[in-house]
């Protein structure tokens, strides 16, 4: 994992001092509300429903034990004893006092953490594959590149006040787990015929009000030029992106307005001046950063551990967990473990201070002291020996992190919604919890198989509802909370935007609606066919028809009850 040197540390320390002074001036009335807003946002501080919300950066989702302990400490000392992991691999606190934020940042700086550029109209914290370095399908480790992007974009003086926020994601595996197609820039690591590393560059993807899948702007940018190429894109965007209309300010709107050919022409014209300039990466620099991401000291182990296999055979709950929450590892005898932050009844992504401490301890005992955050809002211990999985499982079960539901219907992505977020049209968490409660039967859940259900409380799409196999979007109808349902969305290599199935539903209907969708799927599916594949094969029609027929029948029943 990346370790700060004196330069990294100094920047973060200087940021703490800067923000401390800005907060002081704001509280003293020297800095106006409007002036402070972009400054605090660039430091992850929102003013929210209950208190400021502080979003802390976890670059490409990588964490160490000491950092988890610090988060636990912050949760206890400055918040209400828990934290919330987000779809951008970051972590949020919902209840800190603004006066405390400088001190929290100072504490974070002691463990090489910060809140820089986690919000605001700047280049946001870079995201990547949570299984980087351990996935079998990885051809190039994305982490050094994500770190190089992080450094380049941190306090970039030209791009600190963009028309709108800007998100970059990096992928280096065959399967895209960084959702690069819905990022402002998606960097897909490639190799040319000679084996040289470069990037296929996507631009103009994003969710939110206007969901768009990114276009390919360059088929192959050699690694030396990746930062200059990004600079060219950012400059064109900074100069020509719309600033008159907040809703049209993202780069995706500019790319669509110009067309990808014209946009590419402008970027190439800009890049021609930057190419081979000082931003050109050197082999030495890439090697220096890459040194932080060398493999840990893996033991030489047999490909499969006999004890692990035996335990799976004799212990059904363990087998269920192993099936869902344990992933294959590129190294023989190792596995990656996903800790579920989605037990029924907990807000997806929430974790208590005690659990944070436990995960820190478990990571040290079983996984080289490192943890990753997934954009599905779970945690990963990436390097666990198969022989230790049973023991680890017992521990995570005690910590209530062992729900065997990874990739299943109850592994719901949900934004904080109306319970926490000022912008919400509707609540998200209670909907997630109600659906989880309805599908609490594990056998049934496992039988339904892989399915992604994503919920957002408004069209900003923090819960990625567009790319859920089932997407749920909170909408406001005459001051009431309603939910619009989409199906057919997908993330990864086959990223697709879901289609609305029809009129929206009341909150209490949502578990029934999901049940109707699942019912159709179970009837129509071919063997081993996932929900999304069935939707693709048969189209949305049978699903729509059933959902609204079932709804009509329910209303009829209710009427009978009332009349009878």
């Amino acid at each position, binding site marked *: 994992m990346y370790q700060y040197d004196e330069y990294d540390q100094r920047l973060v320390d200087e940021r703490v001092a800067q923000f401390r002074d800005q907060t002081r001036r704001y509280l003293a009335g020297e800095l106006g509300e409007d002036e402070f807003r*972009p400054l605090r946002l660039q430091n992850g501080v929102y003013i929210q429903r209950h208190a400021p919300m502080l979003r802390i950066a976890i670059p490409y989702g990588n964490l160490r034990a000491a950092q988890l302990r610090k988060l636990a400490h912050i949760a206890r000392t400055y918040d209400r004893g828990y934290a919330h992991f987000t779809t951008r691999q970051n972590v949020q606190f919902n209840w800190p006092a603004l006066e405390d934020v400088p001190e929290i940042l100072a504490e974070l700086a002691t463990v090489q953490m910060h809140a820089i550029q986690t919000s605001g109209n700047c280049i946001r914290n870079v995201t990547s594959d949570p299984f980087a370095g351990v996935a079998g399908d990885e051809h190039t480790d994305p982490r050094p590149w994500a770190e190089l992007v992080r*450094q380049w974009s941190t*306090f970039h*003086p*030209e791009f*600190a*006040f963009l028309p709108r926020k800007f998100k970059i994601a990096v992928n280096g595996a065959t399967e895209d787990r960084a959702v690069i197609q819905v990022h402002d820039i998606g960097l897909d690591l490639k190799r040319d015929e000679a084996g040289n590393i470069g990037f296929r560059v996507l631009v103009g993807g994003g969710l939110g009000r206007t969901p768009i899948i990114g276009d390919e702007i360059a088929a192959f940018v050699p690694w030396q030029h990746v930062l200059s190429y990004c600079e060219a894109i950012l400059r064109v965007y*900074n*100069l020509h992106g719309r600033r008159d209309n907040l809703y049209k300010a993202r780069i995706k709107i500019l790319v669509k307005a110009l067309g990808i050919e014209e946009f590419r022409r402008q970027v190439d014209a800009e890049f021609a001046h930057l190419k081979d300039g000082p931003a050109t990466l050197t082999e030495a620099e890439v090697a*220096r950063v890459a040194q932080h991401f060398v493999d840990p000291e893996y033991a030489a182990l047999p490909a499969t551990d006999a004890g692990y296999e035996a335990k799976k055979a004799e212990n059904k709950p363990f087998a269920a967990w192993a099936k869902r929450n344990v992933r294959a590892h590129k190294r023989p005898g190792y596995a990656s473990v996903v800790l579920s932050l989605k037990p029924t009844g907990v807000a997806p992504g929430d974790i208590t201070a005690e659990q944070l401490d436990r995960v820190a301890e478990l990571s040290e005992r079983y996984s080289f002291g490192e943890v990753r955050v997934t954009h599905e809002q779970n945690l990963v211990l990436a390097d666990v020996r198969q022989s230790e999985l049973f023991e680890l499982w017992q521990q995570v079960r005690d910590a209530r992190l062992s729900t065997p539901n990874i990739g299943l219907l109850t592994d719901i992505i949900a934004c904080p919604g109306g319970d926490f977020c000022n912008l919400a049209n509707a609540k998200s968490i209670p909907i997630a919890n109600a659906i989880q409660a309805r599908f609490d039967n594990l056998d049934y859940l496992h039988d339904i198989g892989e399915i992604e259900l994503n919920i957002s409380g408004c069209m900003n799409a923090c819960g990625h509802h567009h790319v859920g196999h089932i997407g749920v979007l909170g909408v406001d109808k005459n001051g009431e909370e309603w939910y619009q349902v989409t199906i057919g969305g997908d993330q990864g290599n086959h990223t697709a935007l879901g289609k609305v199935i029809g009129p929206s539903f009341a909150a209490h209907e949502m578990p029934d609606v999901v049940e109707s969708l699942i019912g159709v799927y179970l009837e129509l599916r071919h063997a081993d066919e996932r929900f999304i594949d069935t939707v693709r094969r048969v189209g949305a029609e049978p699903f729509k028809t059933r959902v609204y027929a079932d709804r009509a029948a329910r209303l009829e029943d209710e009427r009978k009850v009332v009349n009878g």
Partner: protein
Amino acid sequence: MAEIIKHGAIHADDWEVLRLAEDDEAGKVEVAHGRWIVPLAVWQAQRDKLAARAEAGVLGVWLAGGDDPAQLADDLVRLQLIAVDFPKFADGRGYSIATLLRARLGYGGELRAIGNVLRDQFFFYIRCGFDVIQPQPGKYSAEQLQSALASLKDFSEPYQGAVDRAEPLFRRVSREVRA
């Protein structure tokens, strides 16, 4: 008299910024005596009349966020002062405009940030090649402006190259990985 920050210190300054009213015509407005920074449109419309004043160093041109700095390419030798306007402090086009003037077009004269400029952005202005910062009159008290000078040095060793230091950190220093 306005206060500006120039090369890291506060100076009194007698330049005035000419802003066109809605019904002013760029070709017709009279640029009074004194030191004026005029909008690009006025410069373009009255170049013949104003060139001598520019060459004498008593007339500058300011660019708005939507202006293309390349439009001044032929005038850069003549102009001793160019300003870039920040209509809102959160409108960051001026950073790219300044970068282009310095790094692309090779402008070497005074480059001044005007309009809605905040001390919290001083560091970024300097990095993008501004050498003079002119806050709105009355924006800061003398004392506040004095303490704002500290913001010029918010960060000592930024990662990426920019106009003031073109080389990124990895080219400036040797960053060893310590085991």
